[in-house]
């Protein structure tokens, strides 16, 4: 806010007040004591609103609440016109007499946004101002001056003319309009409170309370005025009560500002919390606490991906601009670092949101880097899993091709040889018969080798019958005795079964080829959502976990988020253990 404008407005309010005081002191037309109190109270309300309004205006220049408060204060100063005992003074006062209340009602209806956000609010504001000067003009034209304001009023400028028979009816309609406006304002306040989120209610509470009491008082007074014809003492009592509350109302607003200052101390608490080491996700909780918005979400910008991710590195879409969530982008210089997705009510206090974001900026940047690393790890993990999956699919395809292609053709060849052999009668051509027998034997060897090769590429029994039979078959074909101590009773996800099988077959191959084992035990058991595969042998030990076979096995197990352990002390056998999560 421009300091000169602020000074000018403050001086205007001061001058208006002083003029009012001077008028009060310099004029004496036998006014009643309550009126003096009323005018003093009006002066208090005027200054109170202007002062609080200027503070609010400078704190939130973009929000029109402060400007509206100043307008309320200045409008109240117009009440001094009532002291000018001339027809012109009275007429001018009467025309603008309801303006202070109208500006105030406008302020209450749009607080804390400073502008109408619903159609009902816009309708109310329009009706509210229509009921000020235009309605006063109608009254001046149609109602006897004596009916308008009791004993002290001189005839107004327009108070010349004949009889006005509709005076009572006009006053009754004016009273009803006041009641309707009071009820409408009450309705707006109740609806706004009911629809408000927790942070918004914190802002509304100190002001809404006074506003609702004021609206009730206005409505009651207007109702009484409509029913009972000008009950002067009661009227003055209501006015005093209302003005007292009005003087407190800006103070209530300042109390709200003090609450925001308390929030500044929450920013201090946040700074202390951030200095301590926080696990992922705790920063989000700390920010939610500091901003009193438990729904707050913190997401991090990954420039490489052009996307936001959460603390765990998972991609997140920001909500649409005009939705029920607001987004504050946290920047480092011009570069976005993160975004806070929060209640739109926090937009009412952008300074606090900025202060919290600035306080947490370093930590946010650190967490962003961590989230980036986690996102990369997640990508690497997923990519490794995809590679293993692709490899397995390829193995299945190659095995199937062998089965349907080369193996089938060799089988046909074997049958053809069998037919040829059966047609060579015994003793007719012994050499041919012997050659055919030899060819058949050789072909059988080739087929056996081809079957072994295909089985090594992908064991069909694993897909056909599951891990248990596959391990039993592995044990049967082994050249050293293998005991299968335990197998899972049910089928497991294919990737888990395949990995478990390859762990067992690789460990068995090592035991047979390199360790000189004479006995091997294989077990595969379900344990707390994991499959525990153990292969132990009585060989020479000393297996190298970094050897290509075991290294590849460890990679395959890690692709499933599992872990492989090799325990192979020299001379004391080898135990290979794989823990495989079964959630795949």
């Amino acid at each position, binding site marked *: 806010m421009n300091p000169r404008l602020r000074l000018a407005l403050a001086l205007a309010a001061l001058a208006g007040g002083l003029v009012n005081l001077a008028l009060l002191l310099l004029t004496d037309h036998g006014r009643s004591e309550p009126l003096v109190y009323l005018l003093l109270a009006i002066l208090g309300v005027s200054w109170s609103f202007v002062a609080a309004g200027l503070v609010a205006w400078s704190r939130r220049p973009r929000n029109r609440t402060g400007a509206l408060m100043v307008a309320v204060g200045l409008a109240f100063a117009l009440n001094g016109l009532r002291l000018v005992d001339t027809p012109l003074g009275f007429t001018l006062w009467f025309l603008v007499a309801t303006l202070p209340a109208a500006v105030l009602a406008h302020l209450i209806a749009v607080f804390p946004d400073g502008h109408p956000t619903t159609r009902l609010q816009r309708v109310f504001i329009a009706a509210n101002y229509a009921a000020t000067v235009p309605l006063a003009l109608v009254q001046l034209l149609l109602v006897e001056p004596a009916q308008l304001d009791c004993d002290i009023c001189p005839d107004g400028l327009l108070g010349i003319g004949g009889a006005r028979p509709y005076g009572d009816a006009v006053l009754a309609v004016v009273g009803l309009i006041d009641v309707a406006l009071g009820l409408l304002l009450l309705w707006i306040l109740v609806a706004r409170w009911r629809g408000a989120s927790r942070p918004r209610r914190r802002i509304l509470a100190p002001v809404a309370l006074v506003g609702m009491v004021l609206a009730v008082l206005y409505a009651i007074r207007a109702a009484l005025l409509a029913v009972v014809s000008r009950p002067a003492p009661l009227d003055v009592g209501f006015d005093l009560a209302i003005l007292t509350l009005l003087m407190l109302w800006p103070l209530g607003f300042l109390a709200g500002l003090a609450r925001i200052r308390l929030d500044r101390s929450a920013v201090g608490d946040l700074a202390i919390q951030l200095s301590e080491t926080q696990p992922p996700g705790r920063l989000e909780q700390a920010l939610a606490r500091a901003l009193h918005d438990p729904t707050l979400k913190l997401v991090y910008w990954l420039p490489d991906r052009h996307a936001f991710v959460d603390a765990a590195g998972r991609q997140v879409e920001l909500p649409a601009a005009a939705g029920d969530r607001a987004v504050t982008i946290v920047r480092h210089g011009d570069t976005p670092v993160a975004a806070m997705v929060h209640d739109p009510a926090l937009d009412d206090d952008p300074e606090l949101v900025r202060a919290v974001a600035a306080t947490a900026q370093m930590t946010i940047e650190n967490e962003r880097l961590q989230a980036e690393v986690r996102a990369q790890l997640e990508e690497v993990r997923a990519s490794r899993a995809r590679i293993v999956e692709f490899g397995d699919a390829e193995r299945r395809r190659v095995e199937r091709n062998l089965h349907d292609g080369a193996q089938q053709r060799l*089988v046909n060849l*074997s049958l053809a040889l*069998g037919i040829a052999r059966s047609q060579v009668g015994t003793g007719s051509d012994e050499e041919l018969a012997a050659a055919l027998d030899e060819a058949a034997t050789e072909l059988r060897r080739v087929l056996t080798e081809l*079957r072994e090769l295909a089985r090594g590429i992908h064991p069909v*029994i694993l897909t*056909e*019958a599951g891990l248990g039979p596959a391990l039993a*078959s592995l044990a049967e074909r082994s050249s050293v005795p293998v005991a299968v101590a335990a197998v899972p009773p049910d089928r497991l996800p294919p990737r888990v079964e395949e990995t478990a099988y390859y762990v067992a077959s690789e460990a068995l191959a090592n035991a047979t080829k390199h360790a000189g084992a004479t006995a091997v035990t294989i077990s595969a058991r379900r344990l707390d959502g994991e499959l525990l595969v153990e292969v132990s042998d009585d060989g020479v030990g000393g297996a190298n976990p970094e050897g290509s076979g075991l290294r590849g096995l460890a990679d395959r197990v890690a692709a499933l988020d599992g872990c492989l352990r090799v325990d192979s002390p020299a001379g004391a056998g080898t135990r290979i253990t794989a823990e495989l999560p079964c959630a795949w």
Partner: protein
Amino acid sequence: MALMKPTLLIVDDHAAFRSLARRLLTAGGFEVVGEAADGHAAIAAVPQLRPDVVLLDIQLPDIDGFDVAARLRDGEAEPVVVLISTRDRADYGPRVERCGARGFIPKDELSAAAIRSLLGATG
């Protein structure tokens, strides 16, 4: 069986194999009464042809040989089912026993004698 040739249905999706098997087994004393290229055709053919033996490949294009064997076991004809495959018996585990087939012969070891030995095993 001593007087009449045992009848046989060959079920395999490879035409060349069916043709060779027919020649081999006919020469070996079987009467091949039909051929089927997939599981459903086999199930449809058995009640009509009423073969003594069904030579059944495990890897078929529609349903696998185990399912065909199980369905034939539940049918009226109840032929003797002999499973065959390019793969080894060990590649299929306990399903070979469970499906109700009389036995398993690797395709490259297929012969009239091998089938007879299975038929003779239980009478």
